[in-house]
């Protein structure tokens, strides 16, 4: 029964992500996760502060159901279908350990150095998590979509704006990992 805990290869995951997109298309919807953040802001009353949040969020309830499903999926997969250890390229794992003291590749799903609950009392770690989230939320809305909305839905529909956004995602990611990580974590 060990196979059930094995990670899924890319050629299983990719087609299933395409399937997710097509099910939503056939339901008359578009696959995109980050717009839920805007919906949640609206539900929280952000419409009082900015017109951007004044819209009929009830029309977006279907997408909130996708979010609830993703939470349940995460629970099921982590509790019953995974040993919660992510093996990566040994060279990358070694580099992480040497340069940044992150030794947990192959032993954890997320590095406890950043994501263990105890680490929240460390202002540096707390700052990284808040800033990382902030940039994702701000950037996704500014760009009008995230990995699902642009890299999957938009590119599948051959949208030039989505290609520009995805190039932006990679410029930002490469700058962060190659230029800023040594300054932040080094």
């Amino acid at each position, binding site marked *: 029964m060990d196979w059930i805990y094995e990670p899924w290869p890319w050629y299983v995951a990719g087609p299933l992500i395409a399937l997710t997109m097509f099910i939503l298309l056939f339901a008359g919807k578009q696959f995109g996760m980050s717009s839920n953040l805007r919906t949640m802001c609206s539900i929280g009353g952000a419409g009082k502060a900015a017109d951007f949040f004044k819209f009929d969020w009830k029309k977006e309830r279907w997408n909130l159901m996708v979010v609830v499903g993703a939470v349940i999926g995460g629970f099921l997969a982590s509790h019953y279908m995974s040993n919660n250890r992510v093996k990566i390229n040994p060279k990358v794992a070694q580099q992480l350990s040497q340069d940044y003291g992150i030794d947990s590749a192959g032993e954890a799903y997320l590095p406890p150095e950043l994501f263990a609950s105890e680490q929240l009392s460390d202002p540096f770690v707390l700052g990284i998590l808040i800033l990382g989230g902030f940039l994702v939320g701000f950037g996704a809305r500014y760009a009008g979509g995230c*990995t699902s909305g642009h890299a999957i839905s938009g590119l599948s529909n051959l949208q030039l704006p989505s290609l520009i956004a995805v190039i932006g995602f990679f410029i930002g990611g490469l700058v962060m990992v190659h230029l800023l990580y040594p300054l932040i974590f080094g």
Partner: protein
Amino acid sequence: MKYITYLAVGVLFGIVMYKSEAASWFRIYEMFQFGSFHMYGIIGSALVLGVIGIQVIKRKNIKAFDKQEMQLKPKKKSVPRYLIGGIIFGLGWALAGVCPGPMCVLAGAGFYSILVVIGGALLGTFVYGLLRGKLPH
């Protein structure tokens, strides 16, 4: 009844994200280090099937259920919003090691620190809403 469908799609998506390790910080870091084909394979294979499927839908004029139009409207043309917004998103994606979908998945998996990241993402969305009129689009 329709909500059950969306819930089920979400469960499928959540399991795929977790089981493929696309929700793992390590895989995102490895991707930006070009250390493995894994993440590129996931996005690439989803895209190949996505492009082919959408071409078939368009050429055969296939409708969604209930005879609705498919949501395939072209996106508004612009460069600055997509490029600058995209770069900001990418900086955060690599720093926190998660994008919006996996954030929900990891919350379900019991990583409570991810709630701080989600809080940050909500704050970022809110601040974008406040500044929107002043930003180049």
